[in-house]
């Protein structure tokens, strides 16, 4: 599903040049659950952002579902993203001015789904993550665990082929964290590919494969048994 080859990304300021990805090559197969680990600043999030088409690589190749996407313009990226990729962030990133229902509905609006269909799908997914009773609440009225469940609901409402999760349990206590990991595992079992950045060895154990990074390169891959 994902094949990246010799990917390079350098952040430059006036005085400092930071190599975030250093000729990184990686392959993720359809249906895989991959955890990416490594110390802060090793390039994990940069990798995730490039995989999510939120950021560009400087050089290298990125093939998504058999299509080279490195040179895609904004419109094509947005199009590819909204139909194929869901995101889950450490800080949930819900829109404060929208209710739970409206937050989850948002991706469907951008993909042009009709209102009646949207309602059906959002209710379905809210039921699935067990937050239906809070559908008319605003994010700030929810606990961290509940907010992350909403974020997961939003990530999956469009039935994406790929979910990119950036430390999804980083802001949660262990019980809420486990719930979220359980949800991701279930999604993966239903066929969704998941790439998750994490600091937590515990969370990483939910994945099929752990990629360890250092200084913008993969240094080790563990296959989970």
């Amino acid at each position: 599903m994902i094949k990246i080859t010799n990917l390079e990304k350098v952040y430059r300021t006036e005085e400092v040049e930071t190599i975030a990805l250093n000729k990184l090559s990686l392959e993720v197969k359809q249906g895989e659950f991959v955890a990416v680990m490594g110390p802060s600043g090793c390039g994990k999030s940069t990798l995730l952002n490039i995989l999510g088409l939120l950021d560009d690589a400087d050089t290298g190749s990125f093939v998504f579902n058999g299509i080279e996407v490195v040179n895609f313009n904004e419109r094509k990226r947005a199009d590819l993203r909204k139909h194929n990729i869901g995101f889950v962030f450490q800080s949930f990133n819900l829109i404060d001015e929208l209710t739970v229902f409206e937050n989850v509905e948002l991706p469907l609006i951008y993909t042009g789904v009709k209102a009646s269909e949207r309602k059906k799908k959002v209710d379905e997914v809210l039921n699935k993550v067990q937050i239906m009773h809070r559908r008319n609440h605003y994010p700030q009225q929810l606990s961290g665990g509940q907010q992350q469940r909403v974020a997961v609901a939003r990530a999956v409402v469009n039935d994406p082929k790929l979910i990119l999760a950036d430390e999804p349990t980083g802001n949660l206590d262990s019980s809420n964290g486990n719930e979220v990991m359980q949800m991701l595992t279930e999604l993966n079992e239903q066929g969704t590919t998941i790439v998750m950045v994490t600091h937590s060895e515990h969370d990483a154990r939910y994945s099929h494969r752990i990629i360890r990074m250092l200084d913008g390169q993969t240094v080790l891959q563990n296959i989970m048994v």
Partner: protein
Amino acid sequence: MIRNYLMIALRNLTRNKAFSFIHITGLGIGLACCMLIFLYAKDEWTFDRFQAKADQLYRITCSIVEKDGKESRIGASAMVQGPAFKAAIPAVQDFVRVQESDHLIRIGAETYSEHVAWADANFFSVFSFPLKSGNAASVLGDQHSVVLAEDEAIKYFGTADPIGKIIELEFNDTFQPFTVSGIARRSPQNSTIRFGFVLPFSYREAKEPESTWDWLSYPTYLVLAPGTDPAAVTRQMNNHYQQVNSKQIAEMKSLGQGSFTWGLQAFPAMHLDPDMYATSHVSDPAYSYILSGIAIFILIIACINFINLTIAQSIRRSKEIGIRKVVGGQRKQLVFQFLGESVLLCAFAFVLALVIAVLALPTFNQLANKQLSLTYLADPLVIAGYILLFLVTAFVAGFYPALVLSGFDPVKTLYNRVSAGAGRNLLSRSLVVVQFSLSTFLIIATLFVYAQFDFLTHKPLGYNDHNLLQVTAHKDGDKQLMKLLKQEFSKLPGVLSVAPRMNGIWVTRSKANEKDVEVLIEHIDESYLATMEVPLVAGRNFSPDFPADSTRAVLVNESYVAAAGWKDPVGKKLRLNQDKDQLEVVGVVKDYHFASLKEKIMPQIFSQGPSMPFGQFMIRISPDDKARTLAGIGKVYNSLVPFRPFEYDYKQDLNFRDYESEQRWKSIISFAAVITIFISCIGLFGLATTSIRRRIKEIGVRKVLGASEFQISRLVSGNFLVLVLIAFLISVPLAWYAASSWLQGFAYQVQGYWWIFPVACAATVAVALLTVGSQAFSASRANPVKSLRTE
């Protein structure tokens, strides 16, 4: 999608009440100003356009070029031009002469002074003044008919039908009966011709026929055939004039008098041509430009608030933008969303503006000297203009923020790496400078107007205008009556002195020291200078001890002496006009401001010439018990001049009236300055709030490291004050240039106005400091532990 945008926009509005208030109030006031000015400008530019024949109607004008090349343009003709041009030029389909004058009217036993219009019989067929009763074609057919406007009909006859009733009108000292033949609807307020009474011109023509071409007293309107080229008609008019007046023209030329050239002015163009004499309700188009400029200033300032605060607040929206992009939103969709928000906000501001405009209309009418009514709002042109104004404002205010916000990098927004500047980035700072430049410009302009106004109303005039009455006597030619009035007035207790003078002004030419001197003639007697308290600088006053004074002697003022180039003026001779008799200068009067300070003191000649009329009295009264004195004067007047109403004015009031337009502009510009300052300050307030919120951690750290509250306040306010000072420096030369151009319109200008600049600077800084300082101070007092923890 739109529902989603709308929802977010509404929730943002309610969540950030302070900022919504700033946006909506600022834009609302700005839009309301534009709406009112738009009404004003529309009224000005469509003046007289309601006339169905507006495109065919022209006024005959006359351009008089004097020997010295000085040109004056007059919007009136003599009696003969209308009929003569109609007879000679086929393209002239018709003519209407309309002369307005003041007359006494008598209804029953009561007399009233009224302003009436004498018009040709076709007045109501040519002009679109509908009649409530009467036939337009025949209503002025009879020489003794009169048409009343509906207001006058109600005023004098109440609910009774006035048709057939008699109104008497004083004409050459006798009352003549006129029968009411029609009632006209009230003439619109955007009409140059307005009337209460319309009388047949034929009556006037029969009573006082004139055949000369140069007695320019009667505005004459021509109806040209559709599609006629007015320039061609003008040529024919002048050819005809040359043909029938060749002898007179040659004579005028030999006497060195000015030459006449006839012209045509499109009827709707009359209102905005202030340089043409003899137009009622004329207006200077500069007013429209200045008012529009002010309104646009205010709207720009409000839009800048919107742009600045939206960008300053963008960090708060950045997460939303990031998320929208992550879930598939494209940039153009976000631009659309943010533009939509500014349209929504503008819609609220627009509603507020309508309310403000409706509430402010009476005050605005007073300020702008208009009678605009709410019904104007229903005009399609006004509606279209307002919709355009709304859309342009929403776009101008919303486009740049939409572009900036939609351009946020989702990665940065979602990882809190966005740093949009609240009062920090160059654009935002520049916009604050623009805002305050405009505000300071208006503050300086306001101070200039105040200073000049104070100068105009307080400058010593060279005579004492306190407790000085000006009484119009009418009956100008009745010398005996004037003598009697003077005697009787003088006897009254409380009357200190009485001086008759000529009613109105007479400007003519004189020859002195081989020089042509344009001169203003004052016909007075020996009591005038003493009554006015004007001193003599040389020679003597008129005196009954010198009987020849009345025919041979004159007084001149200092300006005349200067114009004639005399060193020792007393005893010098001069001639008036083409008179053969020489007049001797017996005294020199100190220059005084007989006209407003907008005009330079002209050379003056004071004469006692027996052939000249009186018609007015200057009466110096005691400051004690003025009411009794006035009543006494009125009683004497009424006993000697029956029927005529006693009309008087205090000279001080008359002088003040000369500056009515300056008084109005003083109010307008003060309003504008207050509004711009207010909008700028609420914007600055919002910007400072956001900036302090952004710097809360910095403030905390500085406090922990030992900064005092004053140092913190100075740090926070300082950034903004620098901008205000830059704005001041930019506005000074612009305001100085504008103010000095405006002052050029006055012959006498306020001097030593340099104090205005430091005062304006201090005022701007003080207002800005108050706006920012209060927040800076409370930020400086906040507990640093809390602010650091917040971060």
